[in-house]
C-alpha cells in the first residue's frame, strides 16, 4: 500500500512533452522542426503574385548551379522572380526569424524575465530613433545593398545597447536586473526623442508613412548582397549563442548562484548582451521592428523541449525561422499585390499556438 502511494506520487501530474532524459540532442523534435522549416521555405518560394511549382523551382535552382535537369519549360521571368526576389526574401525571413528567436532566448535567460524580448535592452528605440532620423534627414545612400535607413538602424540599435550596458555597469559589475531597468529607461527616452524629431522636422508628414511602415516591420531584402552581410553575422551569432547555454542554465539559480557555480558572470553577461545586440541589429537592418516573434517563440519551444538552454537555443532558432517564413509568406500573399505588416501574422500564428500549448500543459508555462 505504502509502495503504491509512493510510486503514484512520483508521476508528475501533467508532464510537458519532453522532460525526461539527458538529451542535449532530441533527434525527433529537431527533425520535425527542420522539416517544418524546409516546408515553410518551399511554400514561401512557391507563393506570391506568380505561383511556381516545386518541380520548376528545383529545375531552376539546379540550372543556376550549372546542373541541367531537362529542357527549360518556364518563362525567363520565373527565373528572375525565383532567384532575385523570392529566394532572397524567404532566406532573409528565415535568418531574421532565427536571429530574433535566439536573441529572445538569450535575453529571457540573462534577465530571468519571461517578458524580455530581443529589443528590451535598447535595440528597438535605438534602431527606431536612428531609422526615423535617417528617413527624415539622410539621403538614400547605399553600401553593399544596404540603404542609409538600414545602416542607421543597425548602428543605432548597437549604440543604444552599448549605452544601456555602460549605464548598468557599476564598479565593473553588471547586474542583469540593472540592465533590464536601464534598458526600459533608455527605450522610453529614445522612443520619445524619435517622436520629437518627427514633430520638429519640417515636411516630416510626407515621410511619416515610411517611418511607420519601418517601425511596424517587414522583410525587405532589396539586394541579395544584403544576405551576404547579414547571413554570416546571424549564423555565427547563433552558434556562439549555443555556447552560452551552459551559463544561461546556471543563471537559473540567480546571479549569485551562477557565480557560485563557477560562471564569470560579468564576462558572460557582456558576451550575451553583445551577441543579442548583434543578432537583433542584423535582423533589424533587413526587417525593421518585427514584434512578438522574439518573445513568443522561446516560450513555445520551452513548452516543447523544456528549459535547458542547450536544447532551447537551437530549437528556437529553427522554430523562429519557420514561423517568420510562414508569416512573411502570408503577409505578401493574402492581399497581393499589397503587402500587410508581417507582425500581424507572427501574432496570429504564434499567439494561438502558444496559448494552445500553454493550456495543454495545464497551469505551467514553464515559468513561475
Amino acid at each position, binding site marked *: 500500500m505504502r509502495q503504491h502511494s509512493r510510486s503514484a506520487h512520483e508521476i508528475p501530474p501533467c508532464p510537458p512533452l519532453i522532460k525526461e532524459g539527458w538529451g*542535449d540532442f532530441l533527434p525527433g523534435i529537431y527533425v520535425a522542426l527542420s522539416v517544418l522549416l524546409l516546408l515553410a521555405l518551399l511554400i514561401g518560394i512557391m507563393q506570391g503574385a506568380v505561383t511556381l511549382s516545386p518541380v520548376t523551382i528545383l529545375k531552376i535552382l539546379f540550372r543556376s548551379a550549372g546542373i541541367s535537369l531537362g529542357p527549360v519549360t518556364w518563362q525567363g521571368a520565373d527565373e528572375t522572380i525565383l532567384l532575385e526576389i523570392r529566394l532572397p526574401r524567404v532566406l532573409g525571413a528565415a535568418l531574421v526569424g532565427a536571429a530574433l528567436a535566439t536573441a529572445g532566448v538569450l535575453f529571457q535567460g540573462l534577465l530571468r524575465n519571461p517578458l524580455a524580448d530581443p529589443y528590451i535592452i535598447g535595440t528597438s528605440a535605438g534602431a527606431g530613433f536612428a531609422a526615423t532620423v535617417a528617413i527624415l534627414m539622410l539621403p538614400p545612400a547605399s553600401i553593399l545593398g544596404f540603404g542609409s535607413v538600414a545602416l542607421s538602424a543597425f548602428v543605432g540599435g548597437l549604440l543604444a545597447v552599448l549605452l544601456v550596458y555602460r549605464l548598468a555597469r557599476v564598479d565593473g559589475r553588471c547586474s542583469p536586473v540593472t540592465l533590464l531597468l536601464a534598458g526600459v529607461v533608455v527605450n522610453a527616452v529614445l522612443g520619445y526623442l524619435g517622436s520629437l524629431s518627427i514633430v520638429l522636422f519640417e515636411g516630416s508628414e510626407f515621410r511619416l508613412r515610411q517611418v511607420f511602415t519601418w517601425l511596424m516591420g517587414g522583410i525587405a531584402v532589396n539586394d541579395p548582397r544584403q544576405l551576404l552581410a547579414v547571413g554570416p553575422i546571424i549564423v555565427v551569432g547563433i552558434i556562439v549563442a549555443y555556447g*552560452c547555454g551552459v551559463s544561461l542554465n546556471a543563471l537559473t539559480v540567480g546571479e549569485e548562484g551562477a557565480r557560485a557555480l563557477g560562471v*564569470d558572470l560579468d564576462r558572460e553577461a557582456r558576451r550575451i548582451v553583445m551577441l543579442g545586440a548583434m543578432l537583433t541589429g542584423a535582423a533589424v537592418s533587413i526587417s525593421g521592428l518585427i514584434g512578438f516573434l522574439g518573445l513568443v517563440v522561446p516560450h513555445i519551444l520551452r513548452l516543447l523541449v523544456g528549459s535547458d538552454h542547450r536544447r532551447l537555443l537551437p530549437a528556437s532558432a529553427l522554430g523562429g525561422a519557420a514561423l517568420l517564413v510562414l508569416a512573411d509568406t502570408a503577409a505578401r500573399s493574402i492581399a497581393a499585390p499589397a503587402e500587410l505588416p508581417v507582425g500581424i501574422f507572427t501574432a496570429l500564428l504564434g499567439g494561438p499556438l502558444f496559448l494552445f500549448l500553454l493550456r495543454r500543459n495545464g497551469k505551467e508555462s514553464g515559468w513561475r
Partner: protein
Amino acid sequence: MAVRPAIRLDGVHFTYPSGFGLAGIDLCIERGERVAILGPNGSGKTTLLKLMLGLLHPGQGTISFEGSDLGGMSRMAVARAIAMVPQELLLPYDLTVREVVLLGRTSYLSRYRGPADEDLEVVRAAMAAVDLLSSGGRPYNELSGGERQRVILAMALAQQPRLLLLDEPIRSLDLNHQIRMLSLIRELNVKRGLTVLSSMHDLNLSSLYFDRLVLLSSGRIVADGPPGEVIRPDTIHEVFGVSVLVARHPGLGIPWMTLAPDARDLLSTREDASEAHPYR
C-alpha cells in the same frame, strides 16, 4: 610539510555600504572538520559564508583556501573546490531534478560539447547520495521543502567540492527532515572526509551534530570551540539576551540547553492575562 588548513581567515574585515559587516575575523578550519556557525539574525553568518566562497571580497585581511589566496582563484577554480548550499532556491522556470543537479557541473562543462559520461556519473552519484535517484525526472518546483533541500545539496555535491558551505540548511524543514538533513551532512563529513561549515540557528541540534561551534555576534567571533565551551549560560545570555539553563544530554553527555527559570516572567504574564479574562 604540515597539512594546510581547508580555509583560513586572518584579520578579515568586511563592511557593507550600510556600515554593517564583519570585523577582525580570525578563523581556521582544518580539513575534515565539521563546524557550525551560530549567532543571532544579522550577526554576519551568511556574510561570512559568502566571503569564504569569494562572492564578497574582504576590505582588509586575507582568506586562503588550502594555502592559496582565495581572491586570486578564478570563479571556475573556486566552484570546483568549494560548494555552497543556499538557504532556498527558487527557479524562475521549471527544471527537472536531474537538470538542477547537473547545474552543479557548470564549472566542468565545455561550451559546445554536452555533458561527458563522467559528468553524468557524478550527477547520478550525487543524486544517490541524497536518496533522490528515482526522482530524476520530477519537476523541481513540485517538490516538498525537504526534497528541494536535498536536490540543492546534490547540486552542490555534483561540484565535487572539498569544502561544503551550507547556509541554514534546516531552516524551513520539519523535525524529521531536519534530522535527516543533518545526518546526511554528518555522513558526508565522516564517510567522505568532506570539510563542512554550516550556519545554524538551533543550538541543541548544532551541539548534537557538529564537533565545533563558532558563535558570532555583531560581526565578531565571541566563542569558538567544542559545544561544551560555547553553549554556556553566560555566552548565550551575552549574545542572545536570553537566560538559559545548560544541562548534559542524558545519553550523549553533550551540552543541552533550555530556557532558564526566569523565563517564568513570560509564563506569569500569560497567566495574568487569562485571569483577567472576563469569561473565566
